């Protein structure tokens, strides 16, 4: 618990530092904003989006992964307009957790959430999101937030918040001042009301694909084409591309794509040795990247990379994503019994950190860390 506290405090202090720097550098940030264009065309108004903060290093807008310890490793968070690729662990035990943390963080901050899956119904995934750990002051901020956003619904929100007063204080000190990133309680579900109040879109492949059997003359797998068109539609209809700035409050679109490239997506890239449409996945990633770079959205993808022995595919996929994090669980491996790792459940590898608007990237000193799943918390050490 002590380790969590220090870790959390660390994240909190950097958060407040970033906020302070952001404040003092407001002029430079404003000056840079319009020039960045594309993804950052919002300029100073971006500061007002809940759950985001500008990067200290390159002025990019960052969002949290839903795991403050991971944010810290990735240089403060995920830049808006980038892809986070999670390499799934062998039995897919821990990667769904990171996936859900990411989505839950979006729900808490009032971001629009887009869930795409070929395996589970997105509605079910959303039901299973973990509940955030809030303390008193953070809870009030959350209340204020929601109050500002939607006045009629504030009553029900107050009720949810009341419930958390009974929770013991998990974090102390400066953490409460930072609204960037929350820890989540993996044993509890997110309150139903929050999900109902949030805006989300689901893309469930079996539903989308069954109606149209005719294949379009494209070079992509039909499932990928459908998903790209679905994402593009939402980005344009809801103004995440910043095309009509005066329309409404800007918001972030969080996209989560589960087990991309698995056979369920109709892609045989991980099944066969030499498949014909091995470029489907990489093309999809490229166009998705184009979509993200021109809009206020951020994407998390989990991918069962352990299914293939073909390192070429992995290398290409890695080159096409921005941040790459690999998970390796100890289940079934000889390390499970290794006394060195007895306190941990697996290893987390930071494989790639993007270089955005910069020659160098925020690299942390260690790249391979161990994680453990406590009863409630996912911690990285």
């Amino acid at each position, binding site marked *: 618990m002590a380790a969590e506290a220090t870790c959390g405090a660390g994240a909190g202090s950097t958060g407040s530092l970033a906020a302070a720097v952001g404040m003092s550098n407001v002029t430079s940030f404003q000056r840079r904003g319009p*020039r*960045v*264009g*594309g*993804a*950052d065309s919002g300029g100073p108004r971006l500061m007002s989006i809940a759950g985001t903060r500008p990067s200290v290093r*390159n002025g990019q807008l960052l969002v949290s992964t839903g795991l403050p310890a991971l944010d810290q490793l990735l240089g403060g968070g995920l830049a808006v307009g980038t892809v986070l690729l999670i390499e799934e662990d062998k039995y897919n035990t821990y990667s769904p957790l990171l996936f859900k943390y990411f989505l839950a963080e979006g729900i808490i901050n009032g971001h629009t959430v887009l869930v795409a899956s070929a395996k589970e119904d997105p509605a079910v995934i959303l039901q299973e999101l973990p509940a955030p750990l809030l303390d008193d002051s953070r809870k009030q901020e959350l209340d204020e937030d929601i109050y500002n956003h939607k006045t009629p619904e504030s009553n029900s929100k107050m009720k949810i918040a009341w419930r958390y007063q009974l929770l013991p204080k998990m974090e102390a000190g400066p953490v409460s001042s930072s609204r960037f990133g929350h820890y989540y309680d993996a044993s509890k579900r997110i309150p139903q009301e929050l999900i109902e109040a949030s805006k989300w879109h689901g893309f469930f492949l079996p539903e989308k694909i069954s109606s149209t059997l005719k294949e379009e*003359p*494209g*070079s992509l797998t039909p499932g990928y084409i459908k998903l*790209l*068109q679905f994402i*593009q539609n939402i980005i344009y209809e809801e103004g995440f591309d910043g095309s009509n700035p005066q329309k409404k409050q800007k918001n972030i679109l969080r996209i989560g794509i589960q087990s991309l490239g698995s056979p369920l997506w109709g892609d045989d890239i991980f099944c066969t040795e030499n498949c014909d449409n091995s*470029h489907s996945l*990489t*093309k999809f990633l*490229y*166009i998705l*990247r*184009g*979509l993200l*770079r*021109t809009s206020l959205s951020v994407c998390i993808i989990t991918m069962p990379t352990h299914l293939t022995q*073909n*390192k*070429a595919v992995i*290398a*290409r996929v890695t*080159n*096409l994503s921005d941040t790459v994090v690999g998970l390796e669980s100890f289940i079934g491996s000889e390390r499970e019994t290794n006394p060195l790792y007895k306190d941990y459940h697996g290893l987390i590898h930071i494989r790639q950190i993007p*270089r*955005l*608007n*910069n*020659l*160098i990237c925020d*690299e942390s*000193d260690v*790249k391979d860390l161990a994680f453990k799943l406590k009863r409630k918390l996912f911690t990285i050490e």
Partner: protein
Amino acid sequence: MFPELNNLLNISPDRAEQGKLTLLCDAKTDGSFLVHHFLSFYLRANCKVCFLALVQSFSHYNIVGQKLGVSLTVARERGQLVFLEGLKSSMDVFFQAHKEPHPLQFLREVNAGNLQPLFEFVREALKPVDNREPAWRCPVLLVDDLSLLLSLGVGAVAVLDFVHYCRATVCCEFKGNVVALVHDSGDGEDEENDILLNGLSHQSHLILRTEGLSTGFCRDVHGQLKILWRRPSQPTAQRDRSLIYQYKIQDKNVSFFAKGMSPAVL
């Protein structure tokens, strides 16, 4: 533009060579700093530059360019820089049905492999114009990066053909330069990429190869750069010089030093 790298390569914006193909190659590290170097180098040298930027957005290159002292926006307005933003155009190609041929037309094709529109784009961009406009020195084609074309479904042979055409046109006909980045997957797993890399290594006049340190991550040394000149006319003593340097990337500059001579160690 990194002055130290210019010294190592014995070039400067005032006397840029002509008719050369430079291959940038990175293994287990990110060699994009070399692309930024050559982009700012040729813009400083007053060359007409055609930049096929497939990997990042314009704003990324622009902001890094500003750190290195060139403005891509200004260069583009003056007509010095022709910028193909791959990410943006790929969306146009993919989501809107175009009738007219687009440089990235191959994205829509089932059996991609036709890079002719892209070559036409390069040729059109770098074609010498009448004397009315301000005369730029030599034309330069810069590609970031060629490996990405493989990921987009183009075959290695098609990419090699494309480079060959570009070399014939830009280097020989227009007396200009070609600079291209290729990733090296390293362990020989990606056969197509290896074909591309070997083919290009064979053609190029200068190879700059960056590698991650074999000993792993280090705070003060980010990798090593191998410089290989392929000029048979030089005396052997000069040709066989071992040119391996280690480098450290800083915010606006890259410092190079001999192997094991990092300031942090000494």
